């Protein structure tokens, strides 16, 4: 799990110069070769596939059919905006939920720190499909959660803001966003924890000594210092959430279909490879551009 905890900028120790000039390249060779052959080449292959015409039976010819991108956007724009919207909501919710947990673990938990860390990581080991199916059980119409939500008029309130329908919690936007938040929350908590653990508590005390209220201390001291953790956490939550379709498929309805689900269906059931490749490529580019803008605004250079 240290992978996630270590996706943070800073703490760069200058690597010492070594004698063997070729050693680093030899060390890099197998790993980089793997990445080039199975990541870079497929990405090019994907771009090329999107510009081909033909069919599975007759084969494909590269025809530089750029029109397909226009068609893809025209036909599936709602799925794209929905995916980005759900992923952004889930990321924001994860931040709001994950921050107190990460702060508590890092600064207040004392000797319980490691126990809490294990409890955050352990759910990963039960397959995420099983855990998402568990949400179906929790939110089912006859379950006590839905009964309580109906009794307290929460369902009506959610329905009023358009997050649910038919006076139920399952098969709704609400369920999908809850599921996405749940699934990717640990990816928010772990980088935040790694960052907040290094926060010097004396700075918080100093702010208190200077008559800053708890809120002012948070706004002017803790939050700015934790920004690298926030950036890493939001990226690790947003990117997988935007491409996910498990939650929308298992917890949503026909009105909550995300673009990942369309890509999956076009590739594996409809077998329309060009449109599926075009959709994949658009999704990738959208995320690269959004992430680029976000990282630039957040002013973080080193990502890995």
């Amino acid at each position, binding site marked *: 799990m240290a992978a996630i905890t270590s*996706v943070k900028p800073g703490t760069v120790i200058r690597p010492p110069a070594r004698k063997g000039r070729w050693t680093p390249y030899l*060390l*890099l060779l197998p790993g980089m070769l793997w990445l080039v052959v199975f990541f870079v080449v*497929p990405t090019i292959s994907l771009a090329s596939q999107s510009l081909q015409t033909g069919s599975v039976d007759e084969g494909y010819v590269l025809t530089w059919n750029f029109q397909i991108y226009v068609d893809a956007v025209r036909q599936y724009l709602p799925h794209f905006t929905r995916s980005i919207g759900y992923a952004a909501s889930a990321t924001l919710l994860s931040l709001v939920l994950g921050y107190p*947990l990460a702060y508590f673990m890092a600064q207040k938990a004392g000797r319980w720190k490691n126990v809490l860390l294990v409890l955050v990581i352990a759910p990963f080991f039960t*397959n995420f*499909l099983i855990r998402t*199916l568990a949400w179906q059980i929790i939110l089912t119409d006859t379950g006590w959660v839905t009964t309580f939500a109906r009794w307290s008029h929460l369902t009506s309130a959610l329905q009023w803001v358009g997050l649910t329908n038919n006076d139920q919690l399952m098969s709704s936007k609400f369920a999908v966003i809850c599921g996405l938040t749940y699934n990717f929350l640990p990816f928010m908590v772990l980088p935040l924890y790694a960052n907040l653990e290094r926060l010097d508590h004396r700075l918080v005390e100093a702010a208190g000594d200077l008559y800053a209220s708890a809120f002012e201390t948070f706004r002017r001291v803790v939050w700015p210092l934790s920004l690298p953790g926030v950036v890493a956490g939001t*990226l690790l939550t947003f990117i997988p959430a935007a491409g996910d379709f498990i939650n929308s498929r298992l917890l949503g309805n026909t009105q909550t279909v995300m673009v990942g689900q369309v890509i999956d269906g076009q590739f594996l059931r409809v077998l329309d490879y060009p449109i599926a490749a075009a959709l994949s490529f658009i*999704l990738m580019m959208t995320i690269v551009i959004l992430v680029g803008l976000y990282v630039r605004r957040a002013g973080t250079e080193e990502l890995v």
Partner: protein
Amino acid sequence: MTWIRKHLIGMAAMLVLTYLLIPNLVVVIFSFNKPNGRYNYEWTRFSTDAWLNPCGPPGLCQSVGLSLQVGLIASLVATVLGTMVAFALGRHRFRGRSATNLLIFMPMATPEVVMGSSLLTLFIAMGIPTGRTTILIAHILFCLSFVVVTVKARVASLDPRLEEAAADLFANALQTFTRVTLPLVAPGIAAGALLAFSLSFDDYIITNFNASPSSITFPMYVWGAAQRGTPVQINVIGTVMFLAALVLVATGQLVSNRRARAAA
């Protein structure tokens, strides 16, 4: 009132932790259920049938076996390749560092559907049939970057003076590496390998693109089951994995605590 204010963060943290753990609790509870229909969605009555007959549903245990096999091979290969890259990045200055960093970062920034589908287009274009080999290729690919990042953090935090001290004590390069560097980096490598295994064992989206009907992994089995009716045994496997993870992490923690105490 002041008590509430003082413990507000703690209470919020516990609520969030509950949200994270409730589905696991449901999985454990429903592994003792005896549902009436094919779907294990409603609590009917307590039974240990599924626990006594975990391989009951046809194909379930084969899929777990395949997932374990793929997970072990993929995490092993990814850990070896990733550790080498991490050493190059953490220990050497060379041309093309930033390009390498970018290449490591890109797979982590690519949504799974995109990575899975692009690999599939490559396999289609090359005429490679999908199956166990293509699953392995894909798993090594998406585990690699996470191993690099994990191990690199550990390599970077290493005190270079320890290696210099070893050299001063007449250790040659190989001895320094095997007796000083490697033991110090080992926790990072172990964490990377564990992460790679859990990513591989859990993956559905990328696997589904690169698998064939004769190579069904456990997540694929669960997905297929979700369409036709969920056997209780799925929850048994989920519970066992959860407990195994707790035991594994707890053991690792104990070992490193003891080491730290021995070193102090």
